[in-house]
């Protein structure tokens, strides 16, 4: 049985994974506009996301996504962990990640050539861990090894990125979740990395 707070973490990870893997389509935008807040910090961020979705169209979001992450030659941000950690791709962090994902039975889809350390893939992996593949210690270890070192900076950069409108709200929510994860895991006894 998964606690509501942990289910909420998984929901947010999945939401972030979805929005960071591709720009939201019209149906997703409709759902985003329906998000409501409740006065809590996370509620406020979700309300901000709803507000940002209300003034955005799918076409503009495609362009924003492209400008931020793909760009001509290079987008504004590189959403891969090894880039943030090592300054280039396919480095040691990626090798560590591959090993850890293998241990968890989370290998990448056959034929996929994209590195596994895309922020969307890592958020997806956290959701899977929370929803049953890993206990709290395993979640903490994975977070500390593969997200904590760079994802907070990535989300902060996303929040401030020049091209970010809708995605500034995504960055804010992501930064919030990273902070809550770090502080939440502080309650959990350390696991050797």
């Amino acid at each position, binding site marked *: 049985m998964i606690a509501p707070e942990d289910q909420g973490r998984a929901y947010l990870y999945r939401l972030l994974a979805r929005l960071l893997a591709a720009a939201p389509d019209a149906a997703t935008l409709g759902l985003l506009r329906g998000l409501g807040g409740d006065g809590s910090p*996370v509620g406020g961020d979700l309300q901000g996301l709803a507000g940002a979705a209300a003034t955005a169209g799918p076409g503009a979001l495609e362009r924003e996504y492209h400008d931020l992450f793909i760009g001509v030659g290079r987008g504004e941000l590189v959403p891969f962990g090894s880039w943030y950690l090592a300054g280039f791709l396919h480095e040691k962090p990626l090798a560590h990640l591959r090993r850890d994902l293998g241990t968890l039975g989370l290998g990448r889809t056959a034929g996929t050539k994209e590195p596994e350390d895309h922020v969307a893939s890592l958020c997806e992996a956290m959701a899977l861990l929370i929803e049953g593949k890993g206990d709290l210690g395993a979640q903490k270890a994975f977070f500390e090894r593969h997200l904590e070192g760079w994802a907070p900076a990535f989300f902060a950069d996303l929040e401030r990125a020049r091209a970010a409108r809708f995605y500034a709200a995504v960055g804010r929510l992501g930064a919030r979740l990273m902070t809550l994860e770090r502080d939440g895991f502080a309650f959990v006894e350390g696991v050797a990395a």
Partner: protein
Amino acid sequence: MRDGKDDAAPRARRRFLKLAGLGTAASGAALLAGSGAAKAAAPAATEAAKGYRVTDHVRRVYDLARF
């Protein structure tokens, strides 16, 4: 460490997360977290995140890896 029932730390952690809104507010994101059936959706969602919806990323990775 296991998520022990009689352990104070996990309870304190949940209380902390609940105050932040991860219990109630975040449940509003359920509809956006994939289709209703979480278990059935998990592998598909993984493929979506890792598969060819991010083809442009793949191209860019190769561009970036060149130097």
